[in-house]
């Protein structure tokens, strides 16, 4: 067996010079410091994304993306297809854990200022992937064509329509018409399984390539410490094995969640029914939902929702561009203001999510 393995290796090595790659990977080190635990969340996000791709492909084999068949096809998956309930529940739970892991990863990078020069592109691609992740969540939410999803999509796409000038055409583009109909479902299906994965994969490729090329970022104070005080750990096999152990734990968590808390399907969407009481978006949109709920109808001459949506838009752009306006961190100086901004954002998101959940 080992000679067969060796022969195969040699055969490939002769053609593509695996030696260089092995040498590169052997020289890969992960810094060890008080914040090292945060390094794992990027890997966890990657793992959950892979699970999404695999379970998503499995769901594709039975799902039917049209108004008359979508809800029924998921009922079929959940009740007739062997382990269909498991695959669908894992897909839904893993989607939520993915957003959670990616948000933790993003905030850890933010608080460590790892976005600072020379890692601006890594931050940008990461943030774009987080936005795409929210897009995945939003578009996937509609695919079962149930009541909650129907109204969530109405509200979500109407929010896009609120933006002055460009909003209306974007809304019509997203909905495939003036209203949320079967045409919207078909579009979202296309976005969810083709457009978003395509763009995401390119960004992921750049993101991972940059991490390999530039190595892991270290916190400012660690970076400044002398070589004697800096500790590292080889990526192969030390860090990788820890990564895999974490992945295994996550896989177990997913299995427990999917088995004991199977994802509900709800009631089929009806365009001529009232929005049900207690309607809410997914938890990661709750803080925005609650804000829009509390905004008054009119603020000065602007409609409340227009102002709310614009404020969120501006905040998202500023957040995305933080490597370019945080000049202090770029120069390697401490910037406490960023910590306060980040803390305010975290508190805001937590408080408004809790309010949204209970109100």
């Amino acid at each position: 067996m080992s000679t067969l393995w060796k022969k195969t290796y040699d055969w490939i090595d002769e053609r593509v010079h695996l030696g260089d790659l092995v040498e590169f990977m052997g020289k890969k080190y992960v810094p060890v410091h008080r914040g090292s635990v945060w390094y794992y969340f990027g890997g966890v996000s990657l793992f959950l994304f892979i699970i999404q791709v695999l379970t998503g492909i499995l769901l594709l084999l039975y799902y039917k993306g049209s108004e008359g068949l979508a809800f029924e096809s998921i009922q079929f998956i959940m009740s007739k297809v062997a382990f269909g309930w498991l695959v669908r529940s894992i897909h839904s739970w893993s989607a939520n854990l993915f957003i959670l892991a990616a948000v933790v990863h993003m905030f850890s990078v933010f608080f460590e200022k790892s976005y600072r020069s020379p890692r601006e592109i890594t931050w940008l691609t990461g943030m774009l992937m987080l936005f795409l992740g929210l897009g995945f969540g939003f578009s996937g939410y509609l695919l079962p064509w149930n009541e909650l999803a129907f109204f969530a999509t109405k509200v979500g796409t109407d929010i896009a329509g609120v933006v002055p000038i460009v909003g209306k055409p974007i809304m019509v583009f997203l909905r495939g018409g003036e209203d949320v109909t079967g045409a919207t479902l078909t579009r979202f299906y296309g976005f969810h399984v083709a457009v978003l994965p395509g763009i995401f994969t390119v960004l992921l490729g750049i993101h991972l390539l940059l991490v390999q090329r530039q190595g892991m970022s270290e916190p400012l104070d660690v970076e400044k410490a002398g070589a004697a005080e800096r500790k590292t750990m080889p990526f192969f096999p030390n860090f990788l094995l820890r990564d895999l152990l974490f992945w295994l734990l996550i896989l177990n968590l997913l299995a427990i969640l999917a088995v004991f808390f199977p994802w509900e399907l709800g009631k089929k969407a009806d365009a001529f029914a009232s929005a049900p009481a207690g309607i809410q978006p997914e938890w990661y949109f709750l803080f925005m939902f609650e804000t829009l709920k509390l905004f008054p109808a009119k603020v000065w001459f602007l409609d409340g929702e227009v102002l709310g949506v614009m404020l969120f838009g501006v905040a998202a752009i500023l957040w995305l561009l933080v490597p370019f306006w945080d000049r202090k961190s770029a120069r390697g100086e401490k910037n406490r203001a960023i910590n306060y901004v980040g803390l305010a954002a975290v508190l805001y998101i937590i408080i408004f999510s809790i309010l949204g959940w209970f109100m």
Partner: protein
Amino acid sequence: MNEQTSPESRNSKRDFLKYVLGGGLLAWFASVAYPIVEYLKPPQQGEVEVSSVKVGPLNAIEKDSGTIIRFGNKPVILIRTAAGELRAFSATCTHLDCTVQYRKDMGVIWCACHNGRYDLNGRNVAGPPPRPLDEFRVVVQGADVFLSKNI
């Protein structure tokens, strides 16, 4: 090519080629992008213009209740007040497009999505809705109730 060409004329030739090729590239790009952008715009579908719909017999509508009626492809809420009066409004919330409902316990038209409230004249009285609901005309002909656009 004439070997005697001065550098200036060679440069202007180069500029000319740059513009022609660059322009050609732009034109090519536009001719690819244009059909794609147009394709992405959903075609206008001929909607059946509905001017009135028959709801049904008056005695089937309970007092102090609200029902969603299909008016073309838009939902309309028909309310019969406790006093027996009939009123109809567009059921699409003016805030973010959800479909409203009649709340007996509060005596208002309520939107579940963001807790918007309208009184029984369709006026936005609480929560985030920026505008009142459009009113529809309710006509009782014989025993039947009809809805029509309020023009």
